[in-house]
């Protein structure tokens, strides 16, 4: 008898620590979506083998769509998490800088001709140049924030506004089109592999950041700076550089996301590419339970958060919601998220939990 009670309390404790854990928020959100689909239409989870327009055997289904199109968001969530933690603010220029990075890639690949028959440079070179461009954009934001102490949202407003024009200017306002099939490998499928490439790229980025966080002090430095700049300085850290670094890393993430985006369509639309993705990236960080005011962060939760948002987007598309109406639905999620993570609500919930427990005990005694 005593044993079962002990066991029960173990379960309760395990449950408690899970609920207390930050990663509970995105997992709970994901579970809600899963339950919703199980009730509405279980075929949502079906994965079929089919052939795509290029004649390759590929997997298809809503889940694959989520993993595929959530890639850019997951990659951006990595950098956005670091920027948020270090600077206590967000970079709203990522969509515009993706346009810049994508435009740079096309420019390098096309050379002077906007519709070349063959690639004018190796794709890897184009990508590396885009990385430099992305990091320069990040460095620009980083200097404004770290050195000139401008609020991140305000500092990044500059590139948010100007970025897409700069992207167009890089290609003289032309719309280059790449006809080379190998270029599509990054945004679509590599022949013979039935899973979309962006997913692999995203996983590679996740792996890289996991290794970086494990084998360097990036986490400790960023968290220290985000929590207490003064004390970090007295412990030998350079807060300005740590913030700068976080923006540069985000710039790198932007370049990778830019490669995927332009590879998907082999061309670019300056005003539409990666539109509103900054809001989704910030939402991913928030959904991961990370404080938008900086400090401690949980990378896994952010990345999971990114896929949850993609899952929500895909769900809405499935139910024929117009893309113009998407933000309204996402706003509902934001409201729920913000309200539930408010300290007041948490306290009330804890009180309620206590009451239920008390009543239960009283019931047992009776």
């Amino acid at each position, binding site marked *: 008898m005593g044993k079962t009670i002990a066991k029960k309390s173990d379960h309760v404790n395990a449950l408690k620590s899970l609920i207390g854990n930050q990663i509970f928020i995105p997992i709970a959100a994901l579970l809600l979506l899963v339950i919703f689909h199980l009730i509405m239409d279980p075929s949502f989870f079906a994965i079929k083998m089919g052939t795509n327009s290029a004649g390759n055997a590929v997997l298809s289904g809503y889940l694959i769509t989520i993993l595929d199109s959530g890639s850019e968001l997951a990659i951006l969530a990595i950098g956005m998490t670091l920027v948020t933690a270090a600077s206590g603010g967000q970079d709203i220029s990522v969509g515009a800088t993706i346009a810049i990075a994508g435009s740079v890639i096309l420019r390098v690949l096309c050379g002077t001709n906007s519709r070349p028959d063959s690639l004018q440079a190796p794709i890897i070179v184009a990508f590396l140049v885009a990385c430099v461009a992305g990091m320069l954009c990040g460095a620009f934001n980083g200097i404004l924030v770290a050195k000139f102490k401008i609020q991140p949202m305000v500092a990044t407003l500059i590139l948010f506004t100007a970025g897409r024009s700069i992207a167009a200017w890089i290609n003289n306002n032309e719309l280059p089109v790449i006809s080379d099939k190998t270029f599509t490998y990054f945004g679509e499928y590599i022949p013979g592999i039935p899973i979309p490439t962006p997913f692999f790229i995203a996983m590679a980025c996740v792996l890289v950041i996991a290794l970086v966080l*494990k*084998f*360097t*002090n*990036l986490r*400790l*430095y960023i*968290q*220290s700076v985000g*929590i*207490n700049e*003064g*004390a*970090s*300085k*007295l*412990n*030998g*850290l*350079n807060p300005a550089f740590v913030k700068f670094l976080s923006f540069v890393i985000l710039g790198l993430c932007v370049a990778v996301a830019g490669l995927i985006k332009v590879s998907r369509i082999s061309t670019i639309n300056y005003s539409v590419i990666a539109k509103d993705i900054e809001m989704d990236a910030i939402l991913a960080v928030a959904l991961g339970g990370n404080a938008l005011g900086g*400090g*401690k962060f949980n990378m896994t939760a952010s990345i999971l958060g990114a896929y949850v948002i993609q899952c929500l987007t895909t769900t809405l598309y499935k139910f024929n919601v117009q893309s113009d109406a998407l933000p309204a639905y996402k706003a509902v999620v934001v409201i729920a998220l913000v309200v539930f993570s408010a300290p007041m609500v948490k306290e009330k919930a804890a009180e309620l939990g206590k009451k239920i427990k008390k009543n239960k005990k009283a019931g047992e005694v009776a």
Partner: protein
Amino acid sequence: MKENAVLEMKHIHKSFPGVKALQNVDFTLCEGEIHALMGENGAGKSTLIKVLTGVYGKDQGEIFLKGSEKEVSIKSPQDAQNLGISTVYQEITLCPNLTVAENMFIGRSKGASVNWKMMNRKTEEILQSLDIPAKATQLLSSCSIAIQQMVAIARAVDEDCKVLILDEPTSSLDDQEVQKLFVLMKELRSKGVGIIFVTHFLEQVYEVCDKITVLRDGKLVGEYEIKDLPRVKLVAKMLGKDLDEKEDIRSGQPTFDAQGAAPVFEAEGLKSNAGIQPFNFYINKGEVNGFTGLLGSGRSESVRAIFGADHVLGGKVKMDGKEVKISKPLDAMKNGIAYLPEDRKADGIIGDLSVRENIILTSQVLKGFFHPYSKAESVKIAEEYIDLLDIKTASTETPIGSLSGGNQQKVILARCLLAHPEYLILDEPTRGIDIGTKMDIQKLVLKLASEGMSVTFISSETDEMLNTCSRLIVMRDRKVVGELHESELSQGSIMNAIAGGETE
């Protein structure tokens, strides 16, 4: 409820995850008395205060106030204030980015309109009547900590209060300012206000208080009239054991013999942007010296210049006889200097990070970006130092912010020690810490010195300086004005020197 009692707390219970902070504590405060609340760190003083002021909800127990038959419920600081309970906390809880006047009146205006002129005039009057050297329109952040504290007290006093709680109000005030505060407290007492006074300074308790309530480990030890409880007995009650108060912690400690080697650290004409005059300084191996002077005399600024914490503008610095360049904290750390800052909250702790991460921070930075401690390694180190310094924490992963002040300080000390410095700078390491821990820290300093570490020790309490330092550098008005050597060290000589008498 007892006659003439303004406040009665009965059977108060409060627990936090892993800690029973208060167990069945009673507390009674009468009209027109100054009541000391005493206990070591973690004894539950601050928790009791926070329960009373609505910062924490109590788990069990009742609170009665004069004028209401029934138990009162205090659910928020606002409730407490409406009931006439005002508080001045140990850590300043005002808004540094607002002006003094705004801080005095924030949250107290009725309606949406603000009459700035009247607010500033009234503030000016209050400041004047309390003799606080600040302007109403000055930004609070531009005032010294002492003045910020006095503004906080002025604000609390100005609110029409029945119960005034002073939680370590004097820990950042110098003797003169303390005396001013005492005058004020006595005046309020004669007006019938009940004052709860939390402090670690025993002398102050015996100077102003009427009654003492002692807590230990979250439990009530007892309530005593001041005349019935001599100092030694009070300390014994707080510690739960007898302590010979006049213990000479120095005897028995071997002293380190530097044997004419070059000083560990030497500075010539050191200057920083913090407004101190260029100064010369040296410290030998195994020596404990200190900077003494009134608050604002430049003691902290001097050590900050040594550590490179402020912007260094000039001067030569030598370590072990070799000239080195220290322009930022990292330079100093690399040269084997560790620094425990004066303002623990702003410059010391990384609040949300764990005790473990806080301990390893300095040495982790020294080890380099690409060489992190493994989790197991860092846990082992943290446990070792938690043991060594007797840090009271639920685990190595507890956020440092949830520890009591003294234990936070020990974590910062552990951080300094882990870097294995040659030269350790401790700026007010005992501020806001209980008497037992104060002794421990002083003993530790002497032990470290006997092993060859050089230590600069700064404290507002001359007792502590006398206990530990063999040489004192005297500062006045941001200038080094003299030096006191071992043979001339005494309470009298120090007072004389910092007050501006002849130092010879």
